[in-house]
């Protein structure tokens, strides 16, 4: 028996096994359900079918250049904070075909790929990653140009967000105003309690997905538990960037500060940070032909401002040093991104801190600049 349609903003509770019914419903509706699962000792985002596929009972221990997935003594499904994966690999695939061209009778013709665009349901999107999707929306779908590859995937998505009750130590979403609670940009949003998921409806699609579930009440008690858990989560976040509003201008006005030599000297130009960052969008093109020379295809692949060839022009490289590339990355992420897109490119997810092998911490480096220019 279907439930009455819920309004946007309505809150209900579901017993945890109900999530299986939800996933099945989504799959029946044609969605490819993606969620966190454990693979190679880390949390990755991959297709899931049931709750059993989720990283139940895990925590992640994250620090500079340190990631461990550890078995904890709880039974919650969504505690483990994200690993190196983010949702960007689905909306902005690491490799996509732009076009094919073939030569017939001496003339070239282009064929645009007629691809099957999957319809994704993202299960378990953290608030920081929700913010990252919104940031990438503003990059890939703009007034002057819309990327058809991103758009085709983005318009089909259903997002089931999960508010963060157990942030890890590299998180700093609170400084960037993106968490730990999911507030908008989702179809459904969960907060995990011990026995139930509290669910908030974010859209018509979300409301529709709940139709065949057994719904419980979001009692005052449960709401209070959730609120307490989120407040505790917020207080537990150690890393901070103070005075974030002044940071863009601070960096912009200190592009020649000698401190860049210091902070840039640790960087290995390995590109890890840009790969794990959920908002990084730089890409390169690859032209691939067959031996006949009559067929070629052009593909788009992820690129990084740390790659040496990134800033190559005839005659040389305009950013030949690691230090200059580190400066480009940092100032773009938290300063010039705002000139370009009206908001910060950083969502405070902390992945770059966890996955930098040189132990570079973006919050610490910003703090160094703040102290050096005080």
């Amino acid at each position, binding site marked *: 028996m279907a439930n009455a349609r819920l309004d946007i903003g309505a809150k209900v509770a579901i017993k945890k096994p109900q999530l299986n019914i939800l996933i099945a419903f989504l799959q029946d509706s044609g969605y490819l359900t993606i969620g966190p699962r454990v693979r190679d000792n880390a949390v990755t985002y991959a297709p899931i079918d049931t709750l059993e596929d989720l990283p139940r009972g895990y925590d992640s221990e994250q620090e500079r250049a340190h990631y461990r997935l550890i078995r904890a003594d709880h039974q919650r499904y969504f505690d483990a904070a994200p690993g190196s994966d983010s949702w960007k690999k689905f909306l902005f695939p690491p490799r996509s075909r732009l076009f094919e061209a073939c030569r017939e009778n001496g003339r*070239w013709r282009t064929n645009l790929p007629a691809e099957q665009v999957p319809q994704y349901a993202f299960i378990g999107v953290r608030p920081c990653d929700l913010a990252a999707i919104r940031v990438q929306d503003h990059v890939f779908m703009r007034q002057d140009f819309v990327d058809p590859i991103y758009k085709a995937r983005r318009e089909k998505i259903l997002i089931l967000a999960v508010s963060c009750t157990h942030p890890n130590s590299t998180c700093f979403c609170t400084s960037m105003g993106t968490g730990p609670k999911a507030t908008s940009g989702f179809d459904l949003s969960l907060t995990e309690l011990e026995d139930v998921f509290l669910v908030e409806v974010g859209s018509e699609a979300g409301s529709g997905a709940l139709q065949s579930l057994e719904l419980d009440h979001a009692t005052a008690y449960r709401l209070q538990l959730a609120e307490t858990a989120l407040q505790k989560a917020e207080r537990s976040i150690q890393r901070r960037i103070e005075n974030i509003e002044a940071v863009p201008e601070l960096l912009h006005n200190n*592009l020649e500060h000698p401190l860049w030599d210091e902070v840039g000297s640790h960087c290995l130009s390995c590109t890890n940070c840009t790969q794990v960052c959920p908002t990084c969008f730089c890409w390169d093109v690859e*032209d691939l032909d067959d031996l006949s020379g009559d067929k070629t295809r052009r593909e788009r692949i992820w690129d990084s401002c740390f790659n040496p060839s990134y800033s190559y022009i005839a005659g040389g490289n305009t950013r030949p040093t690691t230090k200059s590339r580190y400066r480009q990355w940092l100032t773009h992420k938290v300063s010039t991104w705002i000139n370009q897109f009206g908001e910060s490119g950083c969502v405070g997810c902390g992945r770059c801190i966890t996955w930098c092998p040189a132990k570079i911490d973006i919050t610490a480096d910003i703090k160094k600049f703040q102290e050096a220019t005080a």
Partner: protein
Amino acid sequence: MKPSIPVPAAAHQEDYLLSPYWAEITEIVPETDDTTTFWLELTDKELRDSYKFAAGQFNMLYLPGYGEAALSISSDPERPERIGHTIRFVGNVTHAIRRLRVGQTLGLRGPFGTAWPIAAYQGSDVAIAAGGIGLAPLRPVIYHIINHRQDYGNVTILYGARTPSDLLYTSEYAEWEENDIRVMVTVDRADESWQGQVGVVPMLFYRCRFDDQKTVVFSCGPEIMMRFVVFEGLARRISTDRIYLSLERNMKCGQGFCGHCQYGPYFICKDGPVYRFDQLEPYFNLEDL
């Protein structure tokens, strides 16, 4: 009031500005040892009729199997059915283009980028300071001025190249002068067969007079040269919002979202390549930006 840099709309509002249109080479005009102008016509008639560009803009020319190169359009914006690109052969793609013949086709995406705001300076004196291949994106401005000569005051071209054999468009200087445009040319060095000036483009500023209130400077060439052109302009009290430069960086998409051409907060393919100097001032002297 500062005129804003016009960004003309793309000729065609397709979803897919990531795949090229096709254009046929209709004429190949060697200019120097390492530079040639290729004249193109879009193969699709509808596109050919609707394609428009503004002076200063560029196309991404695509050679299947080799890749793309960002190339300034060097022809007359009022005759957009024939698109000219003056190409210097410096890398894989351009060397491959060099081997093409009339009748062969190239992919074309564009036009992209901001334009020289020449129409906003009617009544002004114009100084066009160019070095080497930098004259190519400025030639459309010269065509425009010739087409509307009465709209502009004194027009001076200050042009330099490495040696006399590297000068572009030498066969056109006489026509430009016939249109009341002063053409000053210099080379870095020469042998005794050269009767013209030997020196550098910034030096040419010493050899003419500019009204600092009425003059606008458009400059394109090696960045070092442009820097000195700016010095000379500022020394003659031309204000920073009356000096325009065209910059160059690594370009891949041409539309401001692959990230490669970033320069400070700017995407050179989208907010540039033409900039008003006051926009560049905070960044122009920074190393490795």
